[in-house]
């Protein structure tokens, strides 16, 4: 039952820290806005006065898309490159935010203050960044491992060497779920490693990470069940979004935009729920009730 209690506590934490929720959503919006704004001027200047552009809203228009990319691809490419730059910047900023989130939600009784948030973010930035790099490498290793297994099972993915597609399908059916499970496990470990790093507050990460891994495996049932609940909530949110967007008239673009914002805010909220619930569970399992004061 601890997993369910943790899950509910996660929600409580997220709602309790609604200002942080709102702030994180606005930061996401700001970064996306920086990336998307140049598109407005670009479209106005290039295709805004073409009737083909007006017609392209009647449905997916492959011909318009190809003409646009061919004729104006260079300018559009520059905007996309800029967007990639903002995304990388956002990723780095997310590392900073992560430290802030974890240091704040561990102090459940204390009222939310932005100063605590930013202080926590700055304090744990390098640790969070290193952890992100390690786990990124771990994700890479897992992917490479399953890629290798797939490659071997399909004779080097050489269609001309195979009797049929059956070995490819078998390999996909076998390895894809296994890969997904392992990737989810890595995400889970990453969460607890981050929580542990904030809790112990040490500069060196190797031992805290090992401890976090040990914790996850020792209480695997509870931790996995909680993760499953969070993943299921995310899936529910996506289904709900898909259902609403299907029922909305695609011409109502502002409605679609608002729905998109609902999704983005929902995703930010679920991130807080996930971290809040995992932190609570961690504290319960280790009998720690709050982070050491910064």
């Amino acid at each position: 039952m601890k997993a369910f209690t943790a899950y509910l506590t996660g929600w409580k934490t997220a709602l309790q820290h609604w200002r942080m929720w709102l702030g994180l959503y606005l930061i996401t919006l700001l970064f996306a806005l920086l990336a998307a704004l140049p598109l407005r001027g670009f479209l106005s200047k290039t295709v805004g006065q073409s009737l083909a552009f007006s017609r392209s809203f009647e449905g997916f228009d492959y011909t318009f898309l190809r003409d646009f990319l061919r004729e104006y691809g260079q300018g559009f490419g520059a905007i996309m490159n800029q967007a990639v730059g903002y995304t990388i910047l956002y990723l780095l900023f997310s590392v900073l935010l992560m430290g802030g989130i974890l240091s704040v939600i561990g102090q459940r009784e204390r009222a939310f203050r932005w100063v605590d948030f930013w202080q926590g973010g700055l304090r744990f930035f390098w640790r969070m960044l290193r952890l992100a790099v390690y786990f990124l490498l771990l994700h890479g290793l897992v992917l490479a491992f399953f890629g290798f297994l797939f490659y071997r099972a399909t004779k080097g993915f050489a269609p001309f060497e195979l009797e049929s597609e059956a070995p490819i399908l078998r390999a996909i059916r076998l390895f894809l779920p296994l890969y997904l499970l392992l990737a989810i496990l890595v995400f889970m470990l990453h969460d607890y490693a981050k929580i542990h790093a904030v809790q112990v507050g040490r500069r060196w990460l190797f031992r805290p990470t090992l401890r976090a891994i040990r914790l996850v495996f020792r209480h695997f049932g509870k931790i996995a069940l909680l993760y499953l609940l969070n993943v299921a909530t995310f899936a529910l949110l996506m289904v709900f979004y898909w259902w609403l967007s299907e029922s909305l008239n695609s011409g109502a673009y502002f409605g679609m935009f608002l729905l998109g914002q609902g999704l983005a805010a929902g995703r930010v909220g679920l991130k807080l729920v996930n971290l809040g619930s995992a932190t609570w569970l961690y504290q319960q399992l280790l009998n720690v009730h709050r982070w050491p004061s910064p």
Partner: protein
Amino acid sequence: MDWKPLLALFTLLLPLSPGFCRAGGQPLSPRIASYDIQARLDTARKKVYAHQSVHWKNPSADTVRELRFHLYYNAFKNTGSSFAQELGGSGLFIDALKEHCGWSWMDIRSLKDEYGNDLTRQMGYIQPDDDNEGDQTVLRVPLPRPVPPGDSIRVELDWVSKIPHWAIRTGYNLSYYFMAQWFPKLGVYEPAGTRFAEKGQWNCHQYHANVEYYADFGVYNVALTVPKGFTVGASGVLQGKKQEGDTQTWSFRAEDVIDFTWTASPEYVEVEDEYRGIRLRLLFYPYHLHLAERYLKAIHYAIDFCAEHFGPYPYPCLTIVDPPLHGTFSSAMEYPMFISTAAVCLLPEGVKTPEILIVHEFVHQYFGQVVASNEQEEAWLDEGITNYYEARIMDEYYGSQTSTVDVLGFRMGNMESNRADYFGLSDPQVSEIAHTSWLFREESFHTITYSKTTLLLHTLEGLAGAETLDEAMRTYFERWKFRHPGGADLTSVVSEVVFQKYGPLFGENLDWFFEQGLYGTGMCDYAVAAISNKPKPASAGIFGELDDCTQPAQSHEQAYRSTVTLHRLGELYFPLDVRITFEGGRAVTEQWDGRARSKVFTYEGPEKVVSAEIDPEQNIALDKNLINNSLSLEPERAGVRKRMLQFLVWMQNVMLSLSMLA
């Protein structure tokens, strides 16, 4: 009464009945080159042992002193062949031949004429195209007794061939055999006046990588001995099967065809169908069986369309081969009464590759097989026309925006994909369509030959109308079926039909159109450069009496002088419509011959021009940028906002997804 024995007898005799195979009917073609072949497939040695009898009729007024045979399998003998060199001596197929020592050859052990003369010693390889002495794909056989005009000759050959380990279009892999261009085949003796021939000559090109074959019509009687348990599919009508020990001999007869191709495998399962009197035989590997319904639907559409637009399919049957994954080298091929397609077992319904290939290869039965143009020299003539009708059929039956892909909201029609292919070339001006096909060295061969020709014909459809173009193609088909037309024969038929329909509207002929599209490399791009609405200046000056400077009464209504400026940015020109829309929604359509580099339409009146659009019906498929074809005074602000907001939400989701790694 027990009907079973009678039914069994009837079933046995059915394939031999005249109605079934049209044996003994009036020949459809001149039957210049006919073949009787008895071949044995040795699956252990990957060889074919054969005895072949060739009957050739001299169609010219010349005395012919030699025969020329294609020995296609020698193209895969080593890297010295012209075929291999054109592939750069490497690549997927050549590397596979190297890796498995899968090189092939064709060795004629004995060659005699009907008078008993042994021709083996005199025969020798020639290289009419490129003087590459390493190429052994054309065999010249001098005849001790020449063939007088209109006379014929029979030669007997014994030959052995080693089958390539999956070469391009032919070969074996595992237990799958696809036997195309597998026997010594005569070239075409073109009498003076045929296509480009100024005097009678053999047209027998070496085997080139880009293009496949050109042959005369004839009758093929082929007996194929394969291991017991193998299923054989082939051009022509199955005449019977005979089992002897561990082997089984399958006998086929194909009349009035230019080639004979077959396949064999112990894995095949069959699906049979009959549609519009055509017996359809589909050969699958078991795990593709679920695709049968898709194939049948597509072939029914293609049969219907072709029958209604060109005439009935002239052969009694059609075999469709769906190669296994390891037989993909033989995918997407067309031979008389025999086509191959391609699919993978989990292909989504929205990816129409199998349907596209079925339709394409079936249209080839008309353009390529029956109208037997020379693919090696003018590939556009069969591939281009076929590709155009593939797009027409696919778009008509599967939707003009969904006939190639319709998956997860991504949609692409067939004509759209041709347009994207052509304009997506790094240099769409690299070559003209009517470039000699085997001389294409650029990778753009496929796109220029298939896609650009498709767009050219689609443009012609836009100008003259689909009905007129179809009528022209029907006339071309009727006039040239079972013959060998050249490009000029097609263009003259089209000019003739268009002139009959429209008189001199498009000129005395369509040379101006084909000169640009077939023989030129120019691009087409029209643009609306500007729209201007200025208040009409008040009238001033002397209008009446020379000494009377009284100004005429001015109307109180505001009037505008509006101009619409159009530019021709590309080299190609076509007559086109221009739609001008005024405030209040009134629209006028202007005609422009499209020739001048710039054209201005001027209007005076109380309404401003709000938008202009060149070619509003999108008749000019060759126009490379449709976005600049129109201009609206009022920018589409809501649209711009919509796209920007969509992009914003998309960016938010990408960022949030990536932040999972933080």
